[in-house]
């Protein structure tokens, strides 16, 4: 009798389907880090096998890292803004204009240190302009970004003129080596610490999850948003410096469209651009590396550039789909 009832109980337990299991897996704490990293590792291994062992070599990996650096740095930067539920896709144009100011300062002083400083400060100042419009005048950040893109782009075209602005490429090559690695690692480590180990990061995530609740617990939303933009400004300034060091020249189109690349990298890295509790500071960099790995891997396989676009789009869709479901939380504010 007891055996029958046990069997009945087992029979009555609802069986989990594949999608239910995926949902359970997606809601696990480590999923936002483990899944994109696993996908990245899987892609790298697949390309390594298909290219006959040529992909996972030091030169290729170094190239992948270098190519991901600028978009990755900006993606880390904007993760602070995205986390709060705000959105800013003008970062590419901010980076471009900051780089223009930096190169112009170099052309006047012929001093690389001043160029780096001016680029940093310009990046921060321009991001603070975007922030001020949102915080003081309560304009939605996405609307500010649309206007900022046009204004900064126009300034860039006006200041650069017909010929690209140039810096001494030999010095760029020297600085490009260790400087960029050290600068990036310091910024990345600082962001991870600030974001995941201090109250600043917790406040940003709380605001992104539910601004009303956050306010009721005594968190000053404006103050947190200003903090987010300061960290973003540092990152965008750094990206401007990296851009100058990589190319040694700045043309009119610098940074154009990069805001969308940053957004794509963020989403691919497993973070929602709507922010909230599951946000993190590393997703954007993982996403940027994933994009680079895909591009380089497919090219190394001999896939034509037109097919690459198609294959890339399909893989992106799949990855975004896997990361698309937002956690069930209290009702959030409207984003746009």
């Amino acid at each position: 009798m007891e055996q029958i009832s046990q069997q009945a109980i087992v029979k009555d337990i609802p069986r989990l389907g594949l999608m239910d299991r995926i949902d359970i897996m997606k809601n696990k704490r480590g999923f936002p880090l483990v899944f994109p990293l696993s996908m990245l590792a899987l892609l790298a291994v697949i390309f390594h096998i298909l290219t006959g062992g040529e992909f996972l070599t030091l030169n290729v990996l170094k190239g992948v890292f270098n190519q991901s650096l600028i978009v990755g740095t900006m993606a880390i930067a904007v993760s602070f803004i995205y986390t709060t539920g705000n959105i800013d896709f003008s970062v590419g144009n901010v980076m471009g204009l900051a780089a223009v100011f930096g190169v112009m300062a170099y052309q006047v002083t012929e001093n690389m240190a001043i160029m780096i400083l001016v680029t940093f400060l310009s990046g921060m100042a321009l991001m603070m302009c975007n922030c001020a419009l949102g915080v003081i005048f309560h304009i939605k950040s996405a609307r500010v970004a649309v206007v900022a893109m046009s204004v900064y782009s126009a300034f860039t075209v006006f200041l650069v003129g017909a010929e690209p602005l140039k810096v001494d490429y030999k010095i760029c090559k020297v600085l490009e080596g260790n400087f960029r690695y050290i600068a990036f690692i310091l910024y990345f480590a600082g962001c991870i610490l600030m974001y995941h180990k201090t109250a600043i990061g917790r406040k940003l995530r709380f605001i992104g999850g539910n601004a009303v609740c956050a306010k009721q617990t005594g968190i000053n939303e404006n103050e947190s948003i200003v903090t987010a933009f300061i960290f973003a400004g540092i990152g965008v300034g750094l990206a401007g410096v990296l851009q100058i060091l990589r190319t040694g020249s700045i043309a009119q189109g610098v940074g154009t469209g990069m805001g969308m690349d940053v957004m794509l990298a963020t989403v691919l890295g497993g973070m929602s651009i709507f922010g909230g509790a599951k946000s993190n500071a590393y997703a954007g960099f993982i996403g940027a590396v994933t994009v680079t790995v895909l591009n380089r891997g497919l090219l190394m396989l001999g896939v034509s550039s037109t097919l690459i676009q198609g294959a890339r789009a399909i893989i992106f869709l799949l990855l975004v789909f896997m990361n698309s479901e937002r956690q069930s939380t209290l009702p959030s504010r409207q984003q746009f």
Partner: protein
Amino acid sequence: MKAKRWVSYILTAAMSVSLAACSSSGEASDSGSTTAQTGEAVSSSENHETFKIAVLELQLNDESTNRAEYFNDYIGPKYNCEFMFSEACDDLDSAMTFIENAASSGCDAVINYYSGGNTEQLVQLCQEYGMYYVENAGRSDTNDACYQAGYDNFGGGFQADQVDTGRLFREYLLETMDPSKEHNFIIATGGAYQGNVLQTEISTNMLEAIQELYGLTYESTLEELVTSASPIEAVNDKGIAIYCYPGGSASGWLEGISAALQTGKYDYLLLAPQALGNVGTAVSEVEEALDKDITVIGFGALGDALNNAFNTTDKFGNTTVSMSTIKFTSLVSAMAFSKVYNMLTGYSEVTKADNGEPAVLTFRMEAVTSADQLAEMSGWDTDGKWVADYDVVDSFLGMYNEGLTAEQVQERINAVTYESIKERLE
């Protein structure tokens, strides 16, 4: 939830199909090479290894499609070369990224159609990866140092004879326009504001021709008008409306041209960038709406866009385009290919001028003014009727011509004229 599940299945299936397609594409390419090795290639390519050449494209259009066909299907098999093409690279960063990726893919040389005045960076990058480099640009103040620096991997540039191309536009305007009638002009200056020398030359010649016809004086210098990064009115003492409009491929450019045409003020549209395929509809709409005949003069390559432009008529019975200069894509491609191939096969001296610096090769464009004239060229520069056939390409290569010099190569390029092509192909 069900919908998501189906989307998931569809995406997975699509990815599998896509990857399978990618894989079969690679196989097709491999088999192409095998055919080449077992066929004519073996005898004509001197049994050398397969060279892999990266082609960095600025735009993806009729010309780039034609070039890919010429390189992949015609040049590749005979000379035992594989080609790898980029997506559209319109900034230095994406150009550098492609070159780095090309190096990882085992490319031996780069042919660059993006010339943003950054020759030094790209030459050095290619040198770092052990690749040869040539570019679709001439020698100018921005890259002069690079020509003098003695880079072993730099084979110089190739480009249109800019002065000659500008002259074609100028002569056509002077011959066909009646100065007793008042006309107003939009001049699309293309990438002149970004330092594109060819488009600067064409735009300047157009402005000079108008100046000569009407005997007018501009308030600004020609350089200011041509290199302006934003639209600018060329104010003059005769009151002729001349609107210089920069750009050519960026989003919003066509809308800007269209808006200017819709004012009804302009009856001549002069195009320095290769944009004939883009403006047809905008011009027709304005002609229909305003009952105004608009003359279009431009710059193109043999292909569908140009054929359509010359074979469609507006409501006034005129062809959509009145005059176009054209270039033969295969000839330009052969010039680029011969430079890298000479370097790859150990004949680097063929790419150098008498003074030992890299030489710049130039080609002359032809002017087409009617559908009949274009019809005479029907089928030229397509499979089976390449303007630069094997004989032409061979004549540019050191391995088939002992003691060949860059000057002789230039003479052979100059010998490829409309008449000589016609005689050969028909």
